[in-house]
């Protein structure tokens, strides 16, 4: 028992000091009034929460959830085979894993700019398509929801691959062999053996992708051309151009509460994520 307390103590300390306390500060912010030029001042009020329940902001929430869900699903489908490949490769596992992470050690901003460069009307992709006469006019590959999903999937792929790898790596090959011996095709083996056994990894990956997607602001802003407002953009703008910190804090806290409630409801039904 004591060992467990020692193990938990450092993390608990960090979370209390560097998360709970700032959270309380954010809560306090959300109940105060905005200063004329940013910052927070008395009087105390709950009007920020009342404002947040406006249909305009609920529509933004819905849109964000939808885009995040699509991106997460795509990430899963794209990341699973890759994680499987790395987990089953005989010799170069760490290298392959590192190679997945390597692009993400350069700034995500400039990689997003590189995508914008590739996808715009005079960009590489369209030039290629036109050159090969596959299309006659440039396709609108940028500044729409599709581009946003692409940007999000690209930006969060490693967050899906790593947890998947962590569970797939320890998958007992004997189980797969048994499945094949019993006459299963690779597809069936995948569906009925591998996937169910890697559920924790899938769940972890989905959590690590879906939630940051909800709060993402830079990728949707650049790839979407600033034409849509997602939750991340909304919160970000409250702390920058709108200078309404209390409202930003209120939205953030409501978002956190909402996802927490949904997650607990899901957890009660199926396997717990954490």
């Amino acid at each position, binding site marked *: 028992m004591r060992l467990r307390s020692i193990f*938990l103590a450092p993390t608990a300390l960090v979370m209390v000091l560097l998360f709970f306390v700032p959270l309380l500060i954010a809560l306090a912010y959300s109940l105060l009034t905005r200063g004329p030029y940013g910052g927070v001042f008395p009087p105390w009020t709950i009007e920020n929460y009342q404002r947040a329940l406006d249909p305009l902001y609920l529509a933004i929430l819905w849109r964000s959830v939808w885009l995040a869900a699509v991106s997460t699903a795509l990430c899963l489908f794209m990341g699973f085979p890759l994680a499987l490949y790395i987990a089953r490769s005989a010799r170069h596992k760490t290298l392959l894993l590192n*190679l997945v992470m*390597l692009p993400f050690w350069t700034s995500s901003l400039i990689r997003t700019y590189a995508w914008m460069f590739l996808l715009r009307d005079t960009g590489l992709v369209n030039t290629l398509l036109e050159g090969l006469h596959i299309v006659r006019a440039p396709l609108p590959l940028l500044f729409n929801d599709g581009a946003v999903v692409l940007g999000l999937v690209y930006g969060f792929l490693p967050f899906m691959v790593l947890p998947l790898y962590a569970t797939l790596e320890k998958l007992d090959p004997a189980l797969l062999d048994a499945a094949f011996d019993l006459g299963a095709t690779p597809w069936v083996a995948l569906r009925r053996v591998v996937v169910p056994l890697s559920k924790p990894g899938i769940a972890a990956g989905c959590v690590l992708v879906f939630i940051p997607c909800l709060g993402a602001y830079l990728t949707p802003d650049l790839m979407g051309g600033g034409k849509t407002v997602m939750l991340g953009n909304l919160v970000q703008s409250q702390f920058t151009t709108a200078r309404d910190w209390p409202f930003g804090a209120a939205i953030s806290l409501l978002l956190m509460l909402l996802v927490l409630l949904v997650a607990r409801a899901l957890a009660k039904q199926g396997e717990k994520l954490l």
Partner: protein
Amino acid sequence: MRRFLALYAGAAYLFLYLPLVVLGVFSFNSSKIATWRGFTFDWYRSVFHNAALFEGTMNSLIIALVATAVSTVIGTLAGYALWKKRAPWLTNALYMSLLAPEIIIGVSLLALFQWAFRFGHLRLGLHTVILAHISFSLVYVVIVILARLRTFDPALEEAASDLGANRWQVFRHVTIPLLMPAILAAGLLCFTVSFDDYVITSLVAGVDSETLPMMIYAMARKGISPEVNALSAMITVGLGVLVLLASRLERSR
């Protein structure tokens, strides 16, 4: 199926590296705007002469390494303890730290630090950034470790303790070696999250602790900037070489 997987993996890596290739090619572009004008090494030269950039990179590396080391260690310990017996308040807290938009974390941490600094002559600096990074990267470690532990066979631990090992010895000699791949994966994730962080870092960094993402954002706000491309290409190649060396060392062990 192996061949299909290998082909798919190849395509996936291509997808991952495509923007980097673009950046690399344009780092040799002699025009500042994104139309190809001519080949030049000028941007690389200017990066080498940029002392501020070097300092920023060093700052980023120090912060990421320290934060990763601390987070991975205490996160692994916590993940193990949580696997043995749940602690809902802690897991919910970790969950929420993942959930909170970066800017609200950053603003609140800034307020906390500024308030705490009234009791000492401290300023924002590397230490505040490291603390902030530890706080938001812990959850990644715990999630990865727990995901791995779910498929962990408790019989292995039981066997060890039946043979007379105490709890700590079981953990150290049985569990940790088996957890190593997950620990490495978690550490890698941590490093990535920390090295690339911009929003929180920019809010809690002091005057002297500018990090690489902060500098890159400043330089690249106008669009593709060849100097930034040159810098990114160098970082990628440099880290790539390190990664290759590390895998060589690991295999020869």
